């Protein structure tokens, strides 16, 4: 198990747990990021500290430290 922000670009994983403060948790879960959901790390914006994910056919960005609150299993 690792955290979402530590995936390499192009790496896929399955969500194990959605952590973080309630607003973040709720928002991510409502986007369909739940335990068992498949995600792929599309791109990293190192300068802005932002990662881009692909999940449920959409692309989402979140701050890297926020992505660090999600535990995943590498696929």
């Amino acid at each position, binding site marked *: 198990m690792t955290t979402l922000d530590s995936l390499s670009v192009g790496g896929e994983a399955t969500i194990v747990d959605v952590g973080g403060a309630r607003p973040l948790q*709720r928002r991510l879960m409502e986007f*369909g990021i739940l335990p068992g959901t498949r995600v792929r790390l*599309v791109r990293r914006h190192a300068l802005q500290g932002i990662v881009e994910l692909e999940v449920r056919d*959409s*692309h989402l960005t979140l701050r890297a430290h926020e992505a660090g609150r999600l535990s995943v299993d590498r696929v």
Partner: protein
Amino acid sequence: MSTTTRARTVVLAGNPNVGKTTLFNRLTGGRARVGNYPGVTVERHLGRLSLPDLTAAELIDSPGTYSLSARTLDEQVAFATISGLAPGDRPDLVVVVVDAARLSRNLYLVLQVLELGLPVVVALNMVDEARRSGLEPDVPALERELGVPVVPVVARKGEGTDALLRAVAAVLHDPARGTRDRELWTPEPALAADVAAVAEALPAEWHGGDERRRDALALWALLSLDPDDELIEIPPVLRDAVESRRARATADGRTIDREVIAARYAWIDARVTETVRDRRRVRRWTDRLDRFLLHPVLGFAFFLLLMTGLFQALFAGADPVIGRIEDGLGWLSARAADALPGGLFADFVVDGLIGGVGAFLVFLPQIVILFLFLGLLEDSGYMARVAVLMDRIMKALGLHGRAFVPMLSGFACAVPAILATRNMERQRDRLLTMMVLPLMTCSARLPVYGLLIAAIVPIGEPGAPFRQGLLLAGMYVFGTVTALVCAFVLGRTLIRGPRIPLVLEMPPYRLPHAPTVLRTVTEQASEFVKKAGTVILLCSIAMWVLLEFPRHEPEGTGETETAAAAAQASESYAGQLGRALEPVLEPLGFDWRIGVGIVGAFAAREVFVSTMGVVYGVGADVDEETPALRERLAAATWPDGRLLFTPLVCLSLMVFFALACQCMSTLAVVRRETRTWRWPVFMLAYMTVLAWGASFAVFQGGRLLGFA
């Protein structure tokens, strides 16, 4: 209760970026009224639906949202519009627009609306895009599972809208056809107990005794209420009930949010299997573009280039049109002056009325350019990338990533820039940006700076152009830094708001839909003329009265026209105000004549130059390049013979102009955008205090340091 004569209401709901606005325009035939949602400043569009059976129905747009659960005021607006809390507000039907290529996430919102027991028609939009990516939506299966009509449409091309209207008419006629007859999912016993307890605390008029609706609203409350949410008009007893159930759940090791959201997605995942054949190919173009547009160097370079283009367009592009408008008004003034007998009434028509109309018409070209630009950025999907590019810098200042575009537009003019703050979803972010925008150096300050800089560094001195340029650049930096500092301070004090996590959708790039963009532009322009225009016109007339009354009595025949004008300015209410202000202005180094200029500049900053022309007896037809005015200023003295316009006073005056909110049009627009006088009054107050303080510091500090 008679419902036969009442016009039915249909609410349009959907996630952001699903083509809701385009569909709204299609369904209403492009005619919409713009208003506000009750009690808040979020813009609302209403239009008449042309239904095949001629039922009278009104279509209400709702803010784009991924979920009905709410944390911010703006999310609450979406929830309130769709659910219709008060019995009279309940919509007869909700059309949920769904992106066919992102079905599972979009169905989440559909489920929430269905849980409320409201009649629903699902508009499955962008089926063409979904098909191109190899995803053929199974409409009959979807209808069967959801239990409500599902209509495939392509809003951009107008495909399927007739079928959608037929489905809407059918459900309005027989609501049972659009109402799901069974529960979607059954909560576990522990959650069911939470729902039952919270349901007790709900105001009865929210659900009117309907059990299913009551339980759905209880779920909404459990997921939305939080000690630091921004929601309004929530009964304390409901907050208490939610708080105690959530505390108990936490103690038991449960997470209510997760139980509810996971149950909804479990329903969706059991029924919708996304079968995109070649996932990578779908976003090939978007991915290629993003590799460039979000590149840490090239992406920034492109963004800056784009912003430079906008800047140029706002300055240079709008200029000829503004000139044309001014010519037209000049022509009109001349005709009016010819047609009317001379005297006060002619003066009123020419200077007060036509001048006042001109005062807001000149903003139109910039508003049109800015909204065209914003519309293209938004509709193409690029605006989401702007938020990513600017997030780190803007977040450090407490501003939204998207605030960059309005802030930059503020260099041209604060009025369109304030309208452009609508690109942000949250009221708090809009308000904060609006409050500091007028500190950006707008183009109306340039003539004033030009006049004063020429007084500090006379043309012809060695190295003058360079030193003048340096001073001007310094004023730009000064204004910008002050704006950012004010944002930082205000964002942590008066205009606080919970930090929202940056979870943004990056929609695929699409060619902007011209009709949608153009309609937004015309709508904004006509709204501005109707709403802000009236206030600006009234203020212009008030300023005219201040400067023209009481009338100056000509002193015999020896008095020249310019002397009479100077006397008029001095004896007018504005002149009296200038004199009354002198004790306050003297510590800044200003005399009463500068005071008149400052009062006059309230109509528009550049008016300062012509007012100076009048009070110094050069005539009103001057600009900052007029040598006669510069000489008069250089020669002006205090009664005791000291020179008035020393370099220090000019600097103090520039600082005052940089910071003071001397623009009634800005205040009028802030009033229109916030629907209250509180914020424009606050803006005027804080900026005036800031301006006075900074000028005081410059002038008195400069004197202490030995500058004259």
